[in-house]
């Protein structure tokens, strides 16, 4: 399901206009991204938590040449589902 389909469905469910739902969706993603950028975790009720995880620098091997290079430390977004949802889906 694409974002557009999602917003349309939300618009139908909540009775707001598609435009409004779309605006809210962009606002949501902006807020979440801002939070993640400032190293904040975002809690989504009944769903899970979006966090930023630090991935340490590591040595990687180029499979073609076999040359080893050092990959810098990274921050990656991670989603951890709610315990309840996890069990429900399992």
């Amino acid at each position, binding site marked *: 399901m694409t974002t557009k389909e999602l917003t349309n469905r939300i618009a139908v469910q*909540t009775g707001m206009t598609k435009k409004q739902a779309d605006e809210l969706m*962009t606002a949501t993603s902006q807020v979440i991204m801002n939070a993640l950028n400032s190293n*904040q975790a975002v*809690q989504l009720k009944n769903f899970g938590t979006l966090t930023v995880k630090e991935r340490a620098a590591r040595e990687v091997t180029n499979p073609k040449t076999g040359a080893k290079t050092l990959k810098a430390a990274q*921050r990656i977004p991670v989603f951890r*589902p709610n315990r309840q*949802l*996890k069990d429900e*889906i399992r």
Partner: protein
Amino acid sequence: MENETQKLSWVELKHSIARQAGVSEKTASLFLHALVNETIASLKQGEPVRINKIGTFKMQTMAPRKSVHVATGEDIVIQEYKKISFAPDHGVKSQLNEESEPASDDLPMQKLNEQATEILDLLSDMGQSPQTTQPLQPEDTETAEETAEETTVTEKTEDTEEQKEREEEQLEEKTETNIEMEDNKEEATVPVTEEKQEEKKEEAQNPTVIPTFIPENKEERQEAVEEKKEDTEKEERRKRPFRPWLAAGITMTIFALLLIGGYLFLQQKIEQWVNVISQRIEQINPIETEDADNLYPAVTEGEAADETEAADQTENASGNSVAGQRTYTQFIATEAIPNGSRLAWLARKYYGNRDLWVFIYEANMDHLNHPSKILKGTKIRIPKLEEPLSDPDNPETRQLIKQLEREYLNR
């Protein structure tokens, strides 16, 4: 994980979304609940959900695999199960890492402080009236103490000015120490304190202002900064919207207008060219026109009257008068008029000239109404025309035809 000291709770999320989108918190809450519900419903149906600029949530089925029981060391089989996987959107990772590279925490803090000082400047400029000043929000016990002090200050503002000044000096000292404490806590940079000192100087200059500004809390500052950020973001969003259909419509209308304009221009041009060409042709064949000119004056001038008289005489001789009603005794043929046909067509067929239809009409006037309203199948008698009438080039006949045409068509 060590860095994740803060967590944006559900309520905070709701709050900031409502602010960002400029809607009520209730609407934001409604939206968020719907978002989560729809996402979960879709995931349970096995359909991945993509949220723009964040990532894709997907249901993943983990195949059964062998494992070892941790406690007993027995071989066990972990059964198949499902879980939700999350793949960040393109650009999210790079965005996260761009931010992190230049000394993660220090720079944003500096920026925040700069913005805070700017905002404080603005507020101090505006805040000469006590209405705009915000009430205190005690953060620590120290600030609470200080607020107590301040209330006393406000009480004593009615006293003499000397007292006020003294107290303000005291306050300055207190607040400075307080700020230093805060700075130690928040790792705030020097400009803040400097700015605050400046502020205090200003307040010292006008002692009527109650120094409610001084112990601005971190919360307040952050809120102000957030507001500013949001404002800029809103402006950006206002600039952004691009409606492709609108642009297409505008281009289409412009194109259509251009086409119409070009068509009209060309039409005008063609008319001009036609005129020019006809003029040229006339210039090339001047003989014909000259001949006509030569003929015409001969008729119109001098002998014209004589000639008409002569014609009249001849017509009278043949039983037809130009001025009066002509009687037709001899007929070439009788024809039932076919559909869509007209008298002009018959005239052309029998006399070789369309203009002579008036005589046909004249011969059939007894059973015809209007020359252009002839019913299909009406029988038309075609009269035999004598010399002057059957010659459409004769100027007199031409004149007669014109006169009759006018007369009959205006019936």
